């Protein structure tokens, strides 16, 4: 370790990560351009150079979607942690603890309510930063809660998906969240309560193969990776390189799996229009 890096580590310790020059700049994962973090975030974490949509968490997403950034969090009664007493290289409770500390969220699905384009709505945001957005019993519980509130108050449910895979540490109980959440989607449909899915980067595995593909309308963010099987698994099965743009939002649009690909800047307005149509709400003056 050089003195320079040692010196910087020391400064980071003193100042806390937030104020060190490292965080002033963000490197775009799409094109590599160095972006001034404040401006990047003001641009909804979309790169002005290449249009890459960076992953954002529940707090930013709620602020973006709800009218006037006004919303109320919906608490979820969480089941007990670690139902299988799972241990791999680390104990599962340690992984949970780290994810909670890093995100400030209880699990990978956060809920809030407010209005979108004047329509009272419930929004669920899956957080990739929380153990890859993986679906376990906590995500299942939150999804059920969101649907219950939507049904009780007859508000549309907008589900913003993101998941890199299953919550393997919850084994079969993770798999069982697929039929569990599907039951609530069925109830929303039967009650005529709109259920809209916004697919963000990445949405894969059991989440895609359950509630993410069962919406009344599917909206995807540009460039989002959306699919069932992971690219590496497919490559090792077929032993060839995958086609350009494979499993990206635009590919799903072309293959009939999503209704539209919408830039983040237009997402709230698009959802507002859509929810007004589905709830037969008049156009705002």
């Amino acid at each position, binding site marked *: 370790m050089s003195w320079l890096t040692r010196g910087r580590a020391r400064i980071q310790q003193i100042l806390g990560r937030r104020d060190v020059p490292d965080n002033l700049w963000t490197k775009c994962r799409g094109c590599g351009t160095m972006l001034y973090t404040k401006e990047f975030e003001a641009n909804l974490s979309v790169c002005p150079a290449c249009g890459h949509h960076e992953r954002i968490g529940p707090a930013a997403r709620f602020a973006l979607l709800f009218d006037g950034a006004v919303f109320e969090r919906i608490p979820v*009664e969480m*089941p*007990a942690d670690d*139902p*299988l007493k*799972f*241990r*791999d*290289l680390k104990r599962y409770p340690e992984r949970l603890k780290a994810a909670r500390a890093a995100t400030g969220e209880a699990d990978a699905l956060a809920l809030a309510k407010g209005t979108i384009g004047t329509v009272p709505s419930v929004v669920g945001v899956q957080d990739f930063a929380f153990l890859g957005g993986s679906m*376990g*019993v906590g995500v*299942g*519980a939150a999804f*059920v809660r969101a649907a219950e509130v939507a049904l009780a108050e007859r508000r549309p449910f907008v589900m913003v998906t993101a998941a890199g*895979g*299953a919550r*393997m*540490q*919850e*084994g*079969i*109980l*993770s*798999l*069982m*969240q*697929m*039929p*569990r959440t*599907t*039951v*609530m*989607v*069925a*109830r929303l449909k039967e009650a005529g309560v709109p259920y809209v899915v916004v697919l963000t980067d990445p949405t894969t*595995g*059991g989440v*895609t*193969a*359950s*509630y*993410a*593909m*069962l919406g009344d309308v599917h909206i995807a963010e540009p460039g989002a990776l959306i*699919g*069932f*099987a*992971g690219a590496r*698994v*497919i490559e090792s*099965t*077929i032993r060839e390189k*995958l*086609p350009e743009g*494979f*499993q990206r939002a635009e590919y799903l649009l072309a*293959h*009939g*799996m999503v209704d539209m690909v919408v830039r983040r800047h237009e997402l709230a307005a698009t959802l507002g229009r859509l929810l007004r149509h589905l709830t037969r709400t008049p156009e705002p003056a």
Partner: protein
Amino acid sequence: MSTYLEFEAGVAALETSAARAEGEGRAAEAAELRERATRQLKDLYARLTPWQRTLVARHPARPHIPHYLAGLFTEVMPLAGDRLYGEDPAIVGALARFEGQSVVVIGHAKGEDTESRLRHNFGMARPEGYRKAQRLMQLADRFGLPVITFVDTPGAFPGVDAEERGQAEAIARTTETCLAIGVPLVALIVGEGGSGGAVAIAAGNRVLMLEHSIYSVISPEGCASILWRTPAGRGSKAPEAAEAMKVTAADLLRLGVIDRIVYEPVGGAHRDHALTMTRVRTALAEELAALEAQPRAALREARREKFLKMGAL
């Protein structure tokens, strides 16, 4: 009985010696050797590790859907195609008669030899297979026929064509169909219950499992490669992953994920297909009889409530 699993080496040696003794006319010695082999099998199978069970669940001679169709049903009429794109031999469907009653049978087909394994894609279904399953469940619903599913897949097929045609959507909608129909749905996991590709046809009123089957969110190898970062093959932590994930019938019964275990003959279902059929027949008949009298709405609601509770407080 020519395929022995790695942990059956002792049994293999005893049975080979018994066969030799028989061939050389030493009947008493052969009988004694066979008895020893059976005792050893009994011991082994009474305390199989989750990983050993995984190997048994994948045993090539294990009864597969063609055996169940032939052994349990009469008037079997296979039905083909999803009416949208194609016919997927990885999932078979049929109208059939079980204990005198017409039913719809749906199940994964893994194949029995190299040629048929390729044709059935090793039981890894494409969207067409799942959409055919939806179609047949809806048909069963229209005509008031109970549905019996046989689950045996390493997982849904991970391929470019499958993704292109909406593998995720096909699985999601098949699960949705399971949860929507107003006829009894009994699912039996007979080998590998591999992830979303399995649950798509397993969201039943009753979920049964053969004793040495496994049911899991990801294969032990897949889990090990992600969480333990070990490659498949030698040095893989797949046995540890199988243990940690709780993939066995006994574990799943305890967790409330399945409703009943169908016990296998000594040494596994592959050693005695006939006895396996008898036990499966009894279990299915009892389960269907209990569901038969229930009205459509009650059947659907009970199924939904059951899955709504999975992992709840």
